[in-house]
């Protein structure tokens, strides 16, 4: 299984966790951070099923959500279920690092979330 290639940044001064990267802490403007890898499963915070897709996605729909890892890192990801699968805010998802789109003939990898069944 591929490593989840997301790096979050914890401010050395105040402890605020950031993802994506900021040059200065959003809370205290500190400039030094410890790198944090997301850990554990993901709690689904919100999601949507999108049927009017942008250029580059040759499929009928996409399910996208925002989730929070067990160590507090929050990230967007694609949810890998069919459209009829019931989803609920608060449910636990298993994260993985998989192709999320194809660009110039090559896979682009990103966060995929799958509900624990």
């Amino acid at each position, binding site marked *: 299984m591929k490593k989840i290639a997301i790096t979050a940044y914890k401010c050395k001064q105040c402890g605020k966790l950031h993802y994506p990267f900021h040059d200065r802490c959003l809370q205290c403007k500190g400039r030094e951070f410890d790198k944090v890898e997301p850990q554990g499963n993901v709690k689904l915070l919100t999601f949507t099923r999108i049927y*009017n897709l942008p250029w580059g996605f040759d499929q009928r729909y996409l399910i*996208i959500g925002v989730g929070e890892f067990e160590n507090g890192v929050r*990230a967007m990801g694609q949810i890998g279920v069919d459209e009829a699968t019931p989803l609920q805010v608060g449910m636990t998802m298993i994260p993985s690092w998989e192709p999320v789109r194809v660009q110039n003939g090559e896979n682009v990898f990103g966060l995929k979330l799958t509900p624990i069944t």
Partner: protein
Amino acid sequence: MRDVAIIGVGMIPFGRRDEDTLMDLLAWASLKALDDAGLGDKSVDAVYVANMGGGMIQRQTAIASSLVDRLSLLPAAAETIENGPASGASALKNGLLAVASGYYDTVLVVGGEKMREVTGWRATDFVATMTHPQAEYPYGITLPGMAGMFTRLYMEKYGVTREMLLAISLKNQEMGTLNPYAHVEMALDRAGIFDSRDAIVNNPTSADPLHLYDLCPVSDGAAAVVICPLDMAKKLTSKPPVLIAGFGQATDTHTLQEREDPTDLKAVTLAAQQAFERAKMKPSDIHVAELHDAFTILEIAESEHIGFFPKGQGGKAAVEGKTRLGGQLPINLSGGLKARGHPVGATGVAQVVDIVWQLRHELPKTRQVKNAQNGLTINFGGFGNNVLCFILRRVQD
């Protein structure tokens, strides 16, 4: 700082304008505003052009330089302002500051966009380039998708229902039928999009829980205003000048996930607070508003974050008709983005044009707020990460 007035406004009908170029749209709206200001055969000191997609869609950059040449406004200073869907209000803000500071006396601000030149697929991608290039865009997120995730949270927290969203769609499309500049001039039938068995076919899910008729259309269009110092206004035009009484602008995190409470539209609250403070007004002083209803949920959420209604009460107010003509606070009597359309660079200027018509009392009875004196606009960039608010006031004779 000098007081600044709007002395001329112009708009061209929004919609699908296959025969016209982006420059046509910008030029025609500009000429209408210059004529309205009594400057039809004169020049201006500076021109600010709001446009988001010229470089990507039309493969045209330096649009302001091209426009002053086409309009024979040389050697006026000219620049293009790109600030996503808030480009229009940003351009007006820059014009306002230039006149208020005393650097320029007469400024033309025009916003325009031609989005129907490409497929919906491409247009959706173009708008999605506003999202975070690493943390959001690669996943295929769209602005309706962002709105869908926001709506789910807002429904959960504040009890907003689909019935409340429907009230916005019905009102704004009904107003669109009365607006000759609107892209969508078709009233909606409640049963057809909500109550009947056919509703799911007529009004399919777009980004759940949002449906097709919760979204604004992709449009072509342009709108323009001419501004000058208030004390010069009466010498230039016989029309009642409209004072830019206050403006505010605020930003928020690029990604929704980094907001402590993603349902809190902080930039809307802060921009409105600044505008009220500068105008020395409060929400109850506003008689008419044009809000950025790119998605129906935004009209409800913005009306609450500005302070027109308490949190959780905006949807109920819409259902009770409080935001219709004759209600407590009429909102989007132009049809809003929902019906007038949303050519992204034009929207912030078009909202101001509609409020100026309201404050000059120039609209037909079916859309005119009786004796309106003060109006407000919200132009919402990104997904609430760059928001501008204007408060306009009719200058008493």
